[in-house]
């Protein structure tokens, strides 16, 4: 294995992204010619280890959901390489891809929209087995009932329609569908954002329990730093399609290197009124991803931007062991 082993607890790389790009062409004019690209994901390189949860945070529109969909192949990759279990999967044909489909699953944001409203829950889960296994009808039914129980639902829920469930229960069905084929890797795209806080905690607990039981790896996309802090081992911060900073949770939260990360952290509401804290306010909106700023993409809003930032794009490099950041002044305090 050519990967650098970080620590004994995270020995094996499960997923490796190398310069992954996703551009959405902007077509216009009578001839529908490509007039430009929305650069949703720009040169993302990272490694995800077996059994870990990597959180992905960023403002809406920063490309975090697109990143997840691109990894799963739901969006066509513009450029770059995706390795899963040391096999490149980006150019696989549909049939060859089928075995990876079993290994990579997704839990969606909106539990109300991610289940077919005209399909009984049991049948929805049954369909997964129908597509990927050769089990008999009775075996499939047993497997579905086991799954329902696994995620904290009951066997009698088999014949119900999605609209008969609460949001949290629906998300459990979404989870059941994702774990049905015993995957190694699950992308949680804002999986708990649509839920009440109390239900959020229950679903997160379930996800953690499943991770322990099956040694799952999660790519946990969220905009909620509190949830990320509770749930993830490492965090990736994205801004305008670029990776900005990546490290383990404690270092991201206690010693952020990038000014954008600091600004994000300072926006978390704190219960302690008297705590001394500096609020870093970002001015302006996120730039248009079809026409990103020159140099460092963050320089238009960065409180510590210098001339060099307008010209030179900082590399996403390792500043301390396992702590990556893309900033010319990484770690420099304002």
């Amino acid at each position, binding site marked *: 294995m050519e990967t650098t082993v970080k620590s004994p607890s995270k020995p094996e790389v499960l997923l490796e992204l190398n310069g992954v790009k996703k551009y959405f062409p902007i077509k216009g004019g009578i001839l529908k010619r490509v007039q430009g690209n929305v650069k949703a994901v720009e040169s993302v390189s990272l490694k995800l280890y077996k059994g870990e949860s990597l959180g992905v945070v960023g403002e809406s529109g920063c490309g975090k959901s697109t990143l997840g969909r691109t990894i799963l192949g739901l969006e066509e990759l513009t450029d770059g390489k995706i390795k899963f279990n040391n096999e490149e999967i980006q150019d696989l044909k549909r049939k060859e891809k089928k075995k990876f489909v079993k290994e990579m699953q997704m839990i969606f944001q909106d539990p109300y929209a991610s289940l077919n409203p005209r399909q009984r829950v049991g049948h929805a889960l049954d369909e997964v087995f129908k597509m990927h296994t050769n089990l008999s009808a009775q075996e499939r039914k047993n497997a579905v009932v086991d799954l329902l129980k696994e995620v904290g639902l009951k066997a009698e829920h088999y014949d119900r329609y*999605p609209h008969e469930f609460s949001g949290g229960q629906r998300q459990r069905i979404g989870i059941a569908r994702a774990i049905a084929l015993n995957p190694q890797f699950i992308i949680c795209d804002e999986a708990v954002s649509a839920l009440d806080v109390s239900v959020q905690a*229950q679903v997160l607990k379930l996800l953690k329990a499943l991770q322990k039981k099956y040694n799952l790896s999660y790519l946990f996309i969220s905009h909620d730093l509190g949830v990320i802090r509770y749930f993830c081992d490492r965090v990736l911060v994205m801004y305008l399609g670029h990776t900005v900073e990546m490290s383990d949770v404690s270092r991201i939260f206690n010693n952020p290197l990038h000014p954008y990360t600091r600004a994000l952290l300072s926006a978390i509401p704190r219960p302690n009124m008297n705590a001394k804290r500096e609020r870093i306010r970002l001015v302006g909106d996120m730039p248009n991803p079809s026409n990103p700023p020159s140099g460092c993409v963050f320089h238009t809003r960065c409180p510590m931007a210098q001339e060099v930032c307008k010209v030179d794009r900082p590399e996403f490099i390792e500043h301390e062991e396992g702590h990556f950041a893309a900033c010319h002044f990484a770690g420099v305090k304002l």
Partner: protein
Amino acid sequence: MTTVETVGLKEKKREKYIVTTLRRLFKNKLAIVGLVIVLLQILMAVFAPMITTHDPIKQTLADSELPMFSPGHWLGTDNYGRDVWSRIVYGARISLVVGSIAVALGLIGGVILGMLAGYYRKLDAIIMRFVDLLFSFPGILLAMLIIAILGTSLVNVAIAISIWSIPTCARIVRGSVLSIKEKEYIMAMRSMGASDLRIMVRHILPNASAPIIVFATMRMATAILSTASLSYLGLGAQPPTPEWGAMISQGQAFMWSSPHLTIVPGIAIMLTVFAFNVLGDGLRDALDPNMDLQD
């Protein structure tokens, strides 16, 4: 962790989709009227030999042009002495059968075209231009053209009307597919590695069924009316077939001496078209696409 969020799962919510739809439909009085007329007509068509007293095409010249409420012929007889009631009842059979075949064929063509156009963006332009082409012909003219090519018969009438139904149906289906395709559950199925065919048939079609059902019901009215129009023009049912449009056409010559020969089949056509239209309207309201998301 195995706690289930408690939720007020009312028994009321456990009823089937079709029951909810019917319950909503029955709140609409006009739709009930439509449904009753349609059901009566179906019964009439099915049990035609039992509820008629005469052979619809048997001529009894001695009894010709009897007025309404004559003994033995409560709707009178036509110029050949054929029982008008019997002809109306057997005419219901023809209208329903031709109408259903026309709508079914139109639906098959329209659903397939609309589905492909909505799902595959690359086929969209080609299919929809073809549909526009069909649209550019006035309906009855297109039907006449097709009959001119295929020859006059009821089967050809059904084919002609079905071809004329395809473009409207394709547009309706394409529109629904375009919106359903973007739903997260379709994305979820794709992430599960489901084939396009499976997604289209198992996931998009059931969710696009409401507008298709409404279209089919409304289209029945149009199809029955068109069958009658074409037969009236001599392009559909040929004598002595007891078809309503053909009956009006034949009765026309006796407008003054025996007005019931045109009025009775006219009322039959009108009632049928009215019934299917109000039923379609009622279904449109009952099959609210969002009903399963509400409580």
